[in-house]
């Protein structure tokens, strides 16, 4: 079979698989069930492959046994201590034993411990800059105009810099809204305080509403991607498979 025909066959099977999975939209049926189980099977099979080829071989085995010198690259020594990971991993398999199942907590403990340590390590890297950025000036530094004057027709960079540096009343107002939103949302997530004061009640309720605005916006921008992927699928089925593959158009 020529490579071209192979590609057509491949496209065809891809289309078939797509239809098979789409069929669940109508109702759960044997056709879907068939493709679902193939999907799960292939996925697990592939997981078993990459387990070695992508993870264990390079991150573990090569380090245990080292490597001989190949064109230019020097030989690397093997570090036997890595082999100790096997018994540690094996402990996980005690989970089904009635008597020793506690041992499965050891490898899990190591993984969890590392994750926990990392949380402490990354917290500030992630949130420090965001806190810094949230400290916006609430008062305008210039009242020449309410809105930011456009820099479109300006040429002198110094002048543009001046304007960009200024905080105009409209920006200050935006900042106030921003900060208000942030604080309201934060206050909505205070759990251990009984909200008695009227002001706080207002804050938490508006916090929830402002959250909804945020979620609405997220929904909006996510929709774009989901539809794009569908469109891409349709492009695959109609253009790549049917038009270019079968009908041999371009």
């Amino acid at each position, binding site marked *: 079979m020529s490579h071209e025909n192979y590609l057509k066959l491949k496209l065809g099977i891809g289309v078939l698989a797509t239809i098979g999975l789409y069929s669940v939209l109508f109702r759960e049926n044997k056709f879907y069930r068939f493709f679902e189980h193939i999907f799960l099977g292939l996925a697990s099979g592939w997981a078993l492959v990459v387990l070695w080829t992508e993870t264990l071989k390079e991150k573990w085995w090569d380090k245990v046994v080292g490597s001989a010198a190949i064109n230019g690259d020097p030989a690397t020594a093997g570090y036997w201590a890595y082999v100790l990971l096997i018994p540690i991993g094996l402990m996980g398999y005690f989970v089904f034993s009635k008597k020793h199942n506690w041992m*499965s907590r050891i490898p899990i403990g190591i993984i969890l411990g590392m994750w926990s340590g990392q949380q402490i390590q990354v917290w500030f890297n992630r949130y420090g800059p965001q806190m810094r950025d949230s400290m916006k000036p609430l008062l305008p530094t210039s009242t020449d105009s309410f809105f930011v004057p456009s820099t479109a027709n300006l040429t002198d960079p110094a002048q543009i810099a001046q304007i960009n540096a200024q905080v105009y009343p409209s920006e200050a107002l935006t900042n106030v809204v921003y900060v208000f939103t942030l604080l309201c949302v934060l206050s909505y997530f205070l759990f*251990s305080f009984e909200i008695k004061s009227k002001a706080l009640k207002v804050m938490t309720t508006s916090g929830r509403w402002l959250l909804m605005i945020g979620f609405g916006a997220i929904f909006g921008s996510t929709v774009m991607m989901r539809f794009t992927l569908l469109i891409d699928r349709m492009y695959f089925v109609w253009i790549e498979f049917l038009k270019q593959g079968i009908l041999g158009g371009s």
Partner: protein
Amino acid sequence: MLSQVSSWRGDQYLDTGWVGPFFTLLLCVFILINIKRAGGAKDLFIRRIAGLNAIDEAVGRATEMGRPVLMVPGLSDSVNAIVVQALNIFSYVSRIAARFSNPILICCYSAPIFTVGQEVIRDVYNQEGLADKFDPDSVRYISDRQFAFAAGVSGLILREQAAATFFMGEFYAESLIFAETANSIGAIQIASSTEATQTPFFIAACDYVLIGDEFYAASAYLTRQPVLVGSLVGQDWCKLTVAFTIMIGLISNTVQLGPFKHTQLTEEKKDAKMKPLEKPRPASLNDTFMGNLFKKQSDPELKIERDMDPNFKPAEAPAEGGAG
């Protein structure tokens, strides 16, 4: 040059680098203090979380219909706190289900999650004295491939006709696949995603949704374990700390930028040193006290002489030390 900077003066603490570790430490201390404080006290207040009150109702309904309760502890690649938290909530659910001897089904995304799931859920049944009722297959590994997992789980939801579904933890695109599938067979759904990006979809399709942090508050709310409640109080302290820090920043920045009259700078901080400017420029948020406090600058001229390792052979392309 500062060639004799003390080894205690770690690279990450130079300039204003110390702020990060200090702040992190502060938060940790707040949390630990409150855990300690909570001690025996059981009557600490936690505000109502609607989604969680619905759990009993959901399981109850499943029992009436004699249909299983299906749970998914998120799609984390390996076990992490999010998975543990989800499983804590699920162990509460399974506890109720076990008492009603209602079938449960926990779909795991990765082998480590499966391992922990087995462990935790068996524990629950043992504690309830129903060890014999525990079916190891009720905690299942489905697939560690995102959409194979999605296909598998929605297949299960439809075939097992789950009456109540719980989706809690890290969810991504597949969140809506689960939610809509479960919705199509009229299951009660309680969901929460630590990913803000997925919450709106759960909100659109599920009956009850835990938003953001509520997920972490859940097990404290359900079990009232002093440790958890204490740490929840601690977390509130942390949030307030963050809020206050931001407020201080707001005020100081507002003042330093010069309200109604923009401050012009004559010197700026560069490479962790103050340097004069040839001509004044308007101050920006990078020049303010807080601006500098939260952004470490490193001094390229800072060099340190150390003795060399005699038997060290440099690679043909000298690699930089990882002093980052």
